[in-house]
């Protein structure tokens, strides 16, 4: 008869029956066998598996000491040499979700142990580890404990027995954003037409790739008096001083440059160039004002149309930029502009 799958259960101080919030700062410890919901886990594992130990850690302790807690949990885990680690489920509890995610990531990376956790899709822990960790989708509260744990066990066994893991929707875990190629019986063109016809008829259809969702931002209040305003120029066309002294990337930018426009009536090609890899920069390199309109902005400053041109240009490269990086660059620039009390911005893009 096959050996039982040896499972370690990771839970927090509450499920570990140590206490509530007041005990959320306890350091991790290990106990033989199942505790609390671990009893349900033992039941679900049946003859195929056993809970050899439970590791309990306070949610706050983990969140405040991530690196230390990870080391300590690793030391508690390793000697058992488990076949599988099940963490949580954490439902919508943020610190708990983060801890579960980190423990799973850690066990897989450092010890090569298969892991499964469970979280409500909005749990902050999801985004931190969804790529690396199998997260069973759960409801938002422990009312769904049985269902969540059953799915975790089912997926856990598949991993432990090295079976093929199917599509997220089928197995019940949150899509990890990993694209795996499979061969379809129909051509893409046939699938596309079928989907389009279904869509036109109002029948259900599904995208093969989920389009990204972009949030709406409330429009900022308008400038009341342009003639007294400070206008800043920002560009994602990769315009930098010649030689690119700060080595702004030509694609997949992670940074932006800040360059002084003081004393300049226009941008000249001797001093500026574009290092953007995503478009033909010939025209811009002949005349950088075609990308960043310093010349006309200065004129309008002198004419009193605007109060002043903000003395700094903010520049980055907008090609193949990771959405997360563009958001971060945007937030940093926005913060700087806010501190400088800029009234409005012209952003030029290629």
């Amino acid at each position, binding site marked *: 008869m096959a050996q039982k799958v040896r499972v370690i259960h990771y839970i927090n101080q509450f499920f570990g029956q140590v206490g509530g919030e007041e005990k959320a700062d306890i350091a991790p410890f290990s106990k033989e066998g199942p505790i609390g919901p671990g009893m349900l886990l033992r039941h679900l594992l049946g003859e195929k598996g056993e809970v050899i130990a439970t590791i309990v850690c306070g949610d706050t302790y983990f969140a405040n000491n991530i690196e230390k807690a990870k080391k300590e949990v690793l030391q508690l885990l390793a000697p058992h040499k488990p076949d599988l680690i099940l963490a949580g489920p954490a439902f919508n509890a943020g610190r708990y979700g983060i801890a579960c995610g980190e423990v799973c990531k850690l066990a897989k990376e450092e010890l090569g142990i298969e892991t499964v956790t469970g979280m409500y899709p909005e749990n902050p822990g999801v985004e931190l580890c969804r790529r690396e960790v199998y997260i069973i989708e759960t409801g938002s509260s422990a009312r769904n404990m049985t269902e969540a744990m059953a799915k975790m066990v089912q997926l856990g066994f598949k991993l432990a027995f090295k079976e093929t893991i199917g599509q997220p929707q089928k197995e019940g875990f949150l899509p990890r954003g990993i694209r795996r190629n499979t061969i379809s019986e129909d051509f893409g063109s046939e699938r596309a037409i079928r989907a389009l016809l279904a869509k036109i008829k109002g029948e259900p259809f599904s995208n093969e790739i989920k389009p990204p969702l*972009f*949030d*709406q*931002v*409330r*429009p*900022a*209040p*308008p*400038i*009341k008096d*342009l003639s007294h*305003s400070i*206008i800043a120029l*920002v560009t*994602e*066309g990769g315009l930098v001083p010649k030689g690119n002294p700060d080595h702004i990337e030509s694609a997949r930018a992670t940074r932006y440059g800040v360059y002084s426009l003081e004393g300049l009536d226009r941008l000249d090609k001797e001093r500026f160039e574009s290092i953007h890899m995503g*478009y*033909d*920069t*010939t*025209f*811009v390199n*002949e*005349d950088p*004002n*075609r*990308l*960043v*309109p310093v*010349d*006309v*902005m200065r*004129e*309008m400053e002198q004419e009193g*149309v*605007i109060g002043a041109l903000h003395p700094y240009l903010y520049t*980055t490269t*907008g090609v193949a*930029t990771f*959405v997360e990086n*563009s*958001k971060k*660059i*945007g*937030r940093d*620039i*926005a*913060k700087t*502009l*806010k501190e400088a009390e*800029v*009234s*409005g*911005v*012209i*952003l*030029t*893009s*290629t």
Partner: protein
Amino acid sequence: MLEKEIERVGIPAVLITALTPVAKMFGANRIAQGIGITNPVGNPKASPDEEKASRKRLVTAALQLLTEKIEEGILPTVGSNKIDL
């Protein structure tokens, strides 16, 4: 993305790009039609004087958008796709 992050802190920002459909898809609030992908505020086909004049017209229209109250969900776009300069 940059336009939205700047608007998010309360500073009106107008995006000048030739790819206005992409800007709309991303949810930029204030969009002005750029002249070309490789030259959003330039027109290499025109003479230098004409080019500068058209740049000024476009930037003026863009600045105008900064002074307008934008209702959520309604995206005004200035400029037109046909640039006769």
